[in-house]
């Protein structure tokens, strides 16, 4: 695929595919369009030439809703609305907040070493590391089949980075990660794409 924005060429002749349940790490200098790839998959950017398919579906108007429902996308800055976390979670899980989910929430909070009280805070009150963990928490509870994680561990300490990488890599999910953290490659469970 080809994509050019404001005289800057983001992709030129990029061929890239990911198998079901595969774990792929994309690494490379910043500014070469790694995050743009995620945006293309979600329909936020369109390519100038070439095609992008998700489970054989073209990224097009008629499929975009279904495609987005299958993907969890964690942006670099964890761009959540500034609201009390509890309210945000209520909104996100509106239709699906059952007892299972609540149990899972408690379990995951402890995995991510977050205190229950954090849910009473607003997004803007969180530190970078807490934000990232909240982003991952939403990812894990939503349990969608495809995860696109953009620098998911950049603000975490080494122990937490490792814990997250172990957890993510053992899931039966298709995961594409953009990261500069060595922790992802340590276990040899991930395919590396260097751009």
């Amino acid at each position: 695929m080809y994509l050019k924005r404001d005289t800057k060429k983001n992709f030129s002749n990029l061929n890239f595919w990911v198998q079901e349940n595969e774990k792929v790490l994309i690494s490379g200098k910043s500014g070469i369009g790694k995050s743009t790839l995620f945006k293309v998959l979600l329909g936020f950017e369109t390519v100038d030439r070439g095609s992008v398919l998700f489970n054989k579906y073209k990224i097009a108007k008629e499929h975009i809703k279904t495609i987005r429902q299958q993907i969890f996308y964690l942006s670099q800055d964890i761009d959540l609305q500034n609201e009390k976390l509890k309210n945000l979670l209520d909104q996100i899980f509106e239709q699906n907040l059952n007892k299972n989910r609540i149990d899972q929430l408690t379990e995951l909070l402890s995995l991510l070493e977050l205190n229950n009280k954090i849910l009473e805070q607003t997004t803007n009150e969180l530190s970078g590391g807490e934000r990232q963990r909240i982003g991952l928490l939403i990812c894990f509870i939503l349990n969608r089949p495809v995860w696109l994680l953009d620098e998911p561990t950049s603000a975490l300490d080494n122990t937490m980075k490792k814990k997250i990488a172990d957890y993510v890599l053992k899931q039966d999910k298709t995961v594409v990660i953009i990261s500069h953290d060595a922790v992802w490659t340590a276990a040899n469970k991930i395919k590396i794409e260097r751009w």
Partner: protein
Amino acid sequence: MGANDLGLLSLVSLLIFIFPILIINIRLKLGVNKTLVISVVRMCLQLSFVGIYLEFLFKYDSKLLNVAYLLIMILIACHAIIRSTKLKIRKFFFPIFLSILIPFSTLLFFFNFVLVRIDNPFEAKYLIPIGGMLLGNSMKSNIICLNNFFSGIKKDEKIYFFSLTLLGSRIQALKPYLKKSILASMTPILASMATIGLVSLPGMLTGQILGGSIPLVAIKYQIAIMLSIFYTDYFSTLLSLLFSVKFGFNEFDVLKKDIFNSEV
């Protein structure tokens, strides 16, 4: 009984007070005198013209002419809304025109037909001033509302995208922005309804009392006009938001960049 007419010279005499203001501004280096003079001159000229054509409209009181005049007022209001929100006229004129026209004409005719029960609902005396008040206010609310909505989405594009992936639908992801812009546009009219009469007597009331109406009649009109303004504001901003949600985004729910005049 009507208000005493003002002599032209005595009206001009009111300009005496502008001189100390100009001098103080120069001393304080406010750099506002040019704008101030232009604004005062524009106000005087514009109102003089209004006086002339209102005389004309009132004299002939033709249904067609009155309605045409109202339509021109709506067109000017639409133009002002679109210009202030930096949207492209070509893309937004018709939606905004409808958003104003529908609640405005409904409320105006309700006012004239049901409330005042005048025989000729197109009578210039009622149609033009009441229409002007509804229109002026709904123009202001629309500007606040749309500016708030579009600037919110532009500023928070990434947050909006993230919400879109989390919540699944455009309308769900836009909810916080819709909420914020509706509230912002309602705040002035709600505040003015809550303090009306306590802080100042509104223009229509003052005008009617000066024109010879008994205060009780003037008050009833004022209540009616405040409610009508509020309803027109509310429904016209709601409609323009709905049209914005429909026409301002592409098939992938992304805010279209080409609906704005300047690059964002």
